[in-house]
């Protein structure tokens, strides 16, 4: 039982990332009708916002110690971070909390980047076939990937969680298990709560603001909203920016879980598209539900008890579920009639 509880928790934190990426993909598809294969790259760029913030906070004053030599005979470098020299204890704390701090940088950066992407490239492909949209956004993803590799290299760059969140939490005690049986990394639980908070914020924004109401109306019938004199294009541009922010925040907060590298976006992209299809194209609720559902099922499929019966099931479970769902419910779990059907 404790093994099942652990895999549920595991599926929830993994599903949190899937749901956030799929949510952004669905928003873009629902509003702009664009199949955005660069969305994984936005997740990766968000992660590299965290890397950049840590790199900036870690900038060091370098002095040479002539009394100590390196193994190759040059004077040894003594490195002290500027933030610690300038701000003392506060500087060290800032460095320790670099990942949460990076959120403050990721929000404006990703918003600007998202809007620039939409205005500079994506808008020219609104009326083009989906195949062309896929090609151009996939090409863009590769370009972004190579730029990041050129700057940061190919190796993963570790981003530690703040000291206070590095340990484990005995989650089992809270739900009636014996002490020590269901302990889980604190940062992963924080990530799950963070993803729930972001999803809640996006839904609230779309549900309870007039901006959100117009966007939802635009998603349902873009033409009519335009006939009412509302500049729907401008709003959709901002929506693209918001979707980029959601993906970026998902990436930035994920860095202590998965050391970021230039390729991490691609790893999530395919899975997230499956999540969108299973949830139902254009359905925000479907994307979120399918994200968590597939995260949990993927975790269960990795259990030895399951793999012993069905070897290799962990590697195909998500696609298997997609096949079954599409056979039984071609529109996905919560898909809307008419979406992608003409």
């Amino acid at each position, binding site marked *: 039982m*404790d*093994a099942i509880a*652990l*895999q549920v*928790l*595991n*599926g929830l*934190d*993994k599903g949190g990332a899937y749901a956030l990426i799929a949510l952004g993909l669905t928003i873009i598809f629902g509003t702009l009708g664009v199949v955005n294969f660069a969305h994984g790259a936005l997740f990766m760029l968000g992660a590299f916002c965290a890397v950049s913030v840590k790199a900036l906070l870690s900038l060091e004053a370098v002095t040479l110690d002539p009394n100590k030599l*390196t*193994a*190759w*005979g*040059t004077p040894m*470098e003594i490195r002290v971070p500027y933030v610690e020299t300038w701000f003392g204890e506060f500087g060290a704390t800032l460095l320790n909390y670099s990942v949460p701090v990076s959120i403050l940088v990721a929000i404006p950066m990703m918003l600007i980047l998202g809007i620039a992407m939409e205005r500079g490239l994506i808008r020219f492909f609104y009326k083009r076939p989906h195949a062309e949209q896929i090609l151009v956004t996939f090409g863009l993803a590769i370009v972004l990937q190579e730029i990041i*590799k050129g700057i940061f*290299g*190919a*190796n*993963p*760059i*570790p981003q*530690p969680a703040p000291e206070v969140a*590095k*340990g*484990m939490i005995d989650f089992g005690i809270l739900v009636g298990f014996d002490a020590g*049986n269901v*302990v*889980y*990394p604190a*940062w*992963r639980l924080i990530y799950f709560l963070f993803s729930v908070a972001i999803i809640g914020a996006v839904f609230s924004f779309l549900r309870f603001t007039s901006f959100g109401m117009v966007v939802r109306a635009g998603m349902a019938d873009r033409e009519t909203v335009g006939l009412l004199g509302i500049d729907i294009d401008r709003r959709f541009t901002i929506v693209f920016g918001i979707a980029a922010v959601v993906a970026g925040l998902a990436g930035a907060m994920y860095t*202590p*879980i*998965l*050391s970021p*590298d230039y*390729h*991490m976006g691609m*790893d*999530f992209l395919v899975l997230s598209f499956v999540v969108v299809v299973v949830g139902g194209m254009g359905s925000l609720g479907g994307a979120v539900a399918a994200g968590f559902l597939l995260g949990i099922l*993927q*975790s269960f499929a*990795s*259990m*030895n008890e399951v*793999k012993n019966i069905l070897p290799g099931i*962990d*590697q195909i479970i998500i696609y298997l579920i997609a096949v079954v769902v599409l056979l039984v419910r071609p529109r996905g779990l919560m898909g809307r009639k008419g979406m992608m059907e003409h």
Partner: protein
Amino acid sequence: MKDMRISRRGLLQGTALLGAGLATPTIFSSKAWAAGYTNEPKGGTVTLGFNVPQTGAYADEGADELRAYQLAVDHINGEGDGGMLNTFSSKALGGNGINGKKVVFVTGDTQTKSDAARASAKRMIEKDGAIMITGGSSSGVAIAVQGLCQDAGVIFMAGLTHSNDTTGKDKRANGFRHFFNTEMSGAALGPVLKNAFGSDRTAYHLTADYTWGWSQEGSIKKYTEQLGWQTKAAVRTPLGAGDFSQYITPVLNSGADVLVLNHYGRDMVNSLSQAVQFGLRDKQVNGKDFAIVVPLYSRLMAQGAGENVKGIFGSTNWHWSLQDEGSKAFVKSFGQKYGFPPSQAAHTTYCQALLYADACQRAGTFMPSGVGAALEGFKFDGLGNGPTEYRAEDHQCFKDVLVVKGKENPSSKFDVLEVVEVTPRAQVEYPASLLGGELGPYNNGA
């Protein structure tokens, strides 16, 4: 009217004559006749082909290999400070190239994909006239390129490849490996693990699902079970899984007290970081401290895992902190040129370039069978691993193996591993028949 019918004998004679006539110019102008072997160098230069990952997940490792090759070429041509040529026990090379010919090189990008690696090696052999191919950061790539070089009739000096199969079941006469293998890692790590953790342990393996992972898992299981360890489970994980947490959570309450991560590169960085994140390094099971083992370490990868490597055991082919004269000379030469210490990938590729050049010089030819004969059974020293031998039976180098541990208090970002034991060569040696395979005959090509 004259009878124009053609007799069967006449047809055969005519066909034979026509065939001989058509073939004659080709035979006399072909490389086989003119050169004797593939890409026999003409003029004052000889071209080597450096086939390394310049893009993809192992691009940083490939870049380090390329740096080492450039340094080796400088030294062979008599430029720079000479590096390990000064400490190498063979004194055949005189700093004037190989067999009087200046060394030049071409490069290819393996992308760490077998098909791309074969295509770039083929291009270097056929278009650029490379006489030898060397490099790579993956066993799958090494085995694929080794097969191609055998068919093309050029020597292949493997780069970083650790699977037993490279010089085991997939060995080829034209292929040579300086790097160690999983069998040696197991033999070196076993006694150290016993000393550190005792013989009453239960191991849980997470294994990358491809040739190297299977080979590594098999070797570690074999040697740890000989010590009395039990194997709780050996779970295969997809290559490049990224998040390994769903494979790590079953370990938590499995009853195992050792986690063996048969992962390399990005997979190793991720699985190790996540295992530490799940508290496994600080956990107590069966009244013992939980232990994590990474059988194959790379300093470049260890840097990626950051502080998570602290206290974690593994093995490595070479480390820049070694204090023998060869290692010191190489670190000095590399460090002064590039500003940081070389990786084990750089070391093995530098050695392979020097060993090939030396063998050609001693053989007085670049012909693969002649070069191979000079390498087979060649005993040398001064290249950083102590006395070493290129065993004739499988073209595998036998030398000391390093057991390392993640350093608790690193003095710099390069200082992440410490050598805890230099396992003597005798302890990691095994009979050539153990890993199977046949070398077959040399192919001189053309």
